């Protein structure tokens, strides 16, 4: 590890379609046996479906025509056997298609999740949760019918049409023109329907996403909704969304309903023409077929339309998948975060170095040419009003975003390209709004990291003074907590988050308002804990009030995305600058008491 090695190859932005293609390819190559068996079953079932017609011809021409009873029963058993074989093959087809289709779907979902993890935080910030969820769930589900039935049925139906056409050609060569004309007409007609249905399926996907987003958001904010009794507003908004959705699915229903009717009409016209041509007497173009052949031809023509209609119908069904693919394409077109992970050597003697750092959320500039240098084991605090860019600066130091301009280095390492598993050992973070994950208390401290021993979990909890609180819970460290009912107060959740940050014994601690939401006693406890664990660590903390500063070696004042003043408290006071102003204000504020 003496030189920086890229841990993952730089990823070219793979489009949604090529994501699907490579998912299909991967699943098919990994399950070659199933694929081969499936293909065999498709071929065989085409044959098995044609066989009864020929069998029938034998029965009619050999037995009935000659008036022979003998052999009829043998042939009828044979007929049953082909029916059985057909169904067995049908089952094989269904089973293997399901397995392959679902595998592809699973693979796609996993690929989408992977892609999601490659997107920058900016994507998450600007995209509603429900929207992301709908793309990763319902839109992927929409492509399901493409694999579970669509493609395979299309292939097998194509085979069937081909097989039937060959048989028909063998039996009545002159009819082939009529059959081809019919196919072309069906194609033209179904293409019109396909386009319309696709258009509406796109709308449906958008509406589903909107419904998803609405449900997600309004259920998340349920407390606010209940408090202000705005359920009626919610209902009418939801009704509006449902109505839009209803409108689009009804439009599809209209095309969906017309389609088979149009097909059947076409079929009737075609059948009538064919029979008219086939019937021995009557028309001058009569083809003069044998009775047996006529029976077989009419049977085959009847059969021919089934797969053609099915094909046309499948094309309509597939439009849902196509609309889903279009949405996946949009998702895949989101620029992947240009994060090439590098295993870098940690320099134990270095602290935090920030050079000329600028950053913007979209058009809103948050940080401008920030320069900071925090030597190893120094305790630095950033003070500023809310909205001054403190949290953004911390997130950049933690490697969450790519700096727009400038450079950040922690212990000689670029945090943005640092592999996630290493990051936790280097940086401990206490965010402003801690989150509880579903799991036990111990798991919430350990955070799914199996390398953390139970002892260190308890040590961390003791350090932040949470041990007693945890032991008082119904099952101690094994108590289940999670979204909603946590059984912990918001202050206790913050203490838990502190334990979480120090459990991996990191060299650098980043604290975002560690004591907001804590009363004075807890605050003192936390400060004592931070003091205890801070001995050989570099600490970077954020505060929006001077009273939150404690034990800081240096204080950096931020205003409107810039560091406006830095120094020790004494230096700053002597300077009579921002710090003094802040202090004056705050003192005045607090001294009213």
């Amino acid at each position, binding site marked *: 590890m003496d030189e920086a090695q890229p841990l993952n190859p730089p990823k070219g932005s793979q489009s949604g379609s090529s994501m699907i293609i490579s998912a299909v390819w991967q699943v098919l190559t990994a399950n070659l046996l199933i694929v081969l068996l499936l293909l065999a079953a498709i071929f065989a079932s085409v044959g098995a479906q044609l066989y009864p017609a020929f069998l029938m011809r034998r029965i009619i021409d050999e037995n009935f025509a000659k008036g022979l009873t003998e052999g*009829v029963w043998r042939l009828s058993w044979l007929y049953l056997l082909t029916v059985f074989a057909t169904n067995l093959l049908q089952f094989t087809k269904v089973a293997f298609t399901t397995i392959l289709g679902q595998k592809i779907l699973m693979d796609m979902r996993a690929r989408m999740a992977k892609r999601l993890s490659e997107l920058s935080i900016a994507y998450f910030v600007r995209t509603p949760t429900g929207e992301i969820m709908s793309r990763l769930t319902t839109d992927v589900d929409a492509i399901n019918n493409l694999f579970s039935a669509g493609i395979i049925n299309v292939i097998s139906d194509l085979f069937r049409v081909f097989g039937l056409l060959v048989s028909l050609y063998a039996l009545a060569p002159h009819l082939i023109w009529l059959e081809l004309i019919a196919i072309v007409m069906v194609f033209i007609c179904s293409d019109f329907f396909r386009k319309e249905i696709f258009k509406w399926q796109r709308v449906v996907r958008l509406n589903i996403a909107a419904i998803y987003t609405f449900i997600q958001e309004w259920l998340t904010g349920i407390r606010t909704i209940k408090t202000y*009794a705005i359920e009626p507003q919610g209902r009418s908004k939801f009704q509006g969304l449902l109505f839009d959705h209803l409108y689009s699915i009804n439009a599809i229903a209209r095309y969906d309903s017309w389609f088979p009717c149009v097909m059947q009409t076409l079929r009737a016209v075609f059948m009538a023409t064919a029979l008219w041509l086939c019937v021995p007497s009557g028309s001058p173009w009569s083809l003069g077929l044998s009775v047996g052949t006529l029976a077989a031809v009419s049977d085959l023509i009847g059969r021919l339309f089934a797969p053609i209609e099915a094909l046309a119908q499948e094309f309509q069904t597939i439009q849902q998948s196509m609309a889903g693919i279009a949405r996946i394409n949009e998702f895949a077109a989101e620029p992947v975060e240009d994060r090439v992970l590098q295993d870098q050597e940690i320099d134990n003697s270095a602290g935090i170095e920030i050079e000329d750092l600028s950053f913007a959320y979209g058009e809103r500039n948050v940080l401008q040419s920030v320069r900071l240098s925090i030597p190893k084991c120094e305790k630095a605090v950033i003070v500023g009003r*809310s*909205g001054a860019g403190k949290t953004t600066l911390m997130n950049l130091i933690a490697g969450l975003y790519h700096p727009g301009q400038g450079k950040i280095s922690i212990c000689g390492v670029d945090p943005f390209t640092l592999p996630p598993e290493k990051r936790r050992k280097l940086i401990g973070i206490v965010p402003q709004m801690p989150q509880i994950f579903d799991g036990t208390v111990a798991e919430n401290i350990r955070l799914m990291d199996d390398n953390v021993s139970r002892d260190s979990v308890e040590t961390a909890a003791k350090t932040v003074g949470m041990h007693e609180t945890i032991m008082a819970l119904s099952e101690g460290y094994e108590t289940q907590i999670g979204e909603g*009912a946590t059984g912990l107060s918001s202050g206790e959740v913050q203490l838990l988050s502190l334990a979480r940050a120090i459990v991996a014994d990191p060299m650098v601690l980043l604290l975002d308002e560690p004591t907001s939401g804590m*009363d004075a006693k807890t*605050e003192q406890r936390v400060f004592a804990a931070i003091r205890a664990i801070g001995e050989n660590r570099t600490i970077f903390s954020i505060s*929006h009030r001077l009273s939150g500063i404690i034990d800081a070696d240096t204080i950096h004042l931020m205003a409107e995305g810039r560091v406006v003043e830095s120094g020790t408290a004494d230096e700053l006071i002597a300077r009579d600058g921002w710090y003094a102003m802040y202090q004056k204000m705050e*003192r005045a*504020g607090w001294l009213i008491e």
Partner: protein
Amino acid sequence: MLFQLARYFKRYYMRLLTNRVNSDVRAGLLDNLFTRQLSSLSQEHIGDLMSRMIGDVDQVGSSIQSTITEVWDSVLLMLSYFVACLYYHPQLTLLAAIPIPFAFLIAEKLRRPLYTLSQKNRQALSKINVHLRHNVTGIALLRLFGLESSSRERYDLLLRDQYKWQVLTTMLQGGVGPFYTFAATLGIIIVVGRGGEYVVQGVWSIGDFTAYLAMFSAMATRTNVWARVMNTWHGASASWDRICEKLAVVSGQIGSAEVHPDAAGAEGLKVGSLSFSYPFANEESIRDISFTAHPGQIIGITGPVGSGKSALAAVLSGLYDYSGHASLAGREVRGLGAERSAFISWMDSQHFVFSDDVLFNIALGRDSVSSLVSVQNTIPSQTDVPGDPEATPDAWLAQAIALAALNQDIASFDEGMQTRLMERGVRVSGGQRQRIALARAWYGSSQLVILDDPFSAIDINMERQIMANIRAEIGDRIVLLFSHRLAAFSLTDRVLVLNKGCLTEYGSHDELLQQRGLYWSIFTAQNVLRGEAAGGEDDG
């Protein structure tokens, strides 16, 4: 042609019907969720609810559709084929039809396993949704802690689990179809054998034979379709039950609306022996709390972490059940029902923001503001109407914005009142979010305004300004200010100190300081801390 037209109408209106049913079920589900009590809603996983409202409803809808169409087509056709076959040759038909009921018997036998498998599958999908939602909402934290890959591993496991159930369900649902056909077609051997003999014997013409065979085969195929519809139902009933499970949660009255005799007809807020525990919590969060607040008063409530501040704020919102009494203007708060929001505003610590514009986020569509605000996008000018129930929505809005000191912020937004906020509030800082939530609580004429930790993301200067605004604008309102920072408490009329869920100190700010109890110790501790922070300068 006419037949096809009729068929179109049949198909179209069947689909319309299903679509309608789907929409109605979804609207019904939301209605039910909206009427449920907060305490029971907090037990729900939103990802799971989303999965039920979308996936399960679709599942049921498509089953209804296929059932209706198939019932019509298949049963009718099956019966007509059967009658026609009977007409041709009753004996042969009855004999050949013997195996058909067996197909239905198999289908019926599959009810249980299909239900179970389908339920497992739907549950697995719910889990995927729940996991995904957590992942998306907590993405920053997952990344900060380097947990994204392990979270994705868990996601992959969930996907694999769901794959298993999905395959089993589909196999059982679709895979058995051919066997139904086969069972139903068993009779074909008799048809071909016997029928063949009839033809040879001259009983049947060849035409009779082929027609009969065609009809019999069609009947057999329909058997398969119908049996499969039965199986689809078995699967969909699992989804239906999952929907009903949520629809079945009844949400009655939160608790008795009976008022304590002493409080009847009284003005202001009267709280007596109030106790409350969160659902499934072992202990009571607050115990035996009593106090009174008069119109025009600001009551400051403080206490250490876990002392029950947020619990008290929640209870007084009237949205939870409790024991003891809490009455506002002579009415029990939990019994206010539909009128509750006209009496009480509760700013909780979530500071939730809707992805809508600033105007909606403050007024929440509770009243219609004038076109001046909604169309011309101007902040209404403030008239002096503190807490006046007769005031116009415009005046309320103006007052709320001014109180939360949002005028400048809104003026600085590109689209003013119509600036769209996002769920995660990209456009606004944490402090602005908090002040928008504050303006929302102040908007209107509710008598009781509960502010739970309203200043945590707001700097001290702004906090002072807002406190002064509240003092000036309070009118006949009662403000409950829950906070751990005591800076603002000198402007309160009464202070309540909670410790371990009990009310330990009660009095004015000055009285409590003189008592030298917990309040005094917290207060001095904050002073000491401030002294420490300021200490550096003096030592230097």
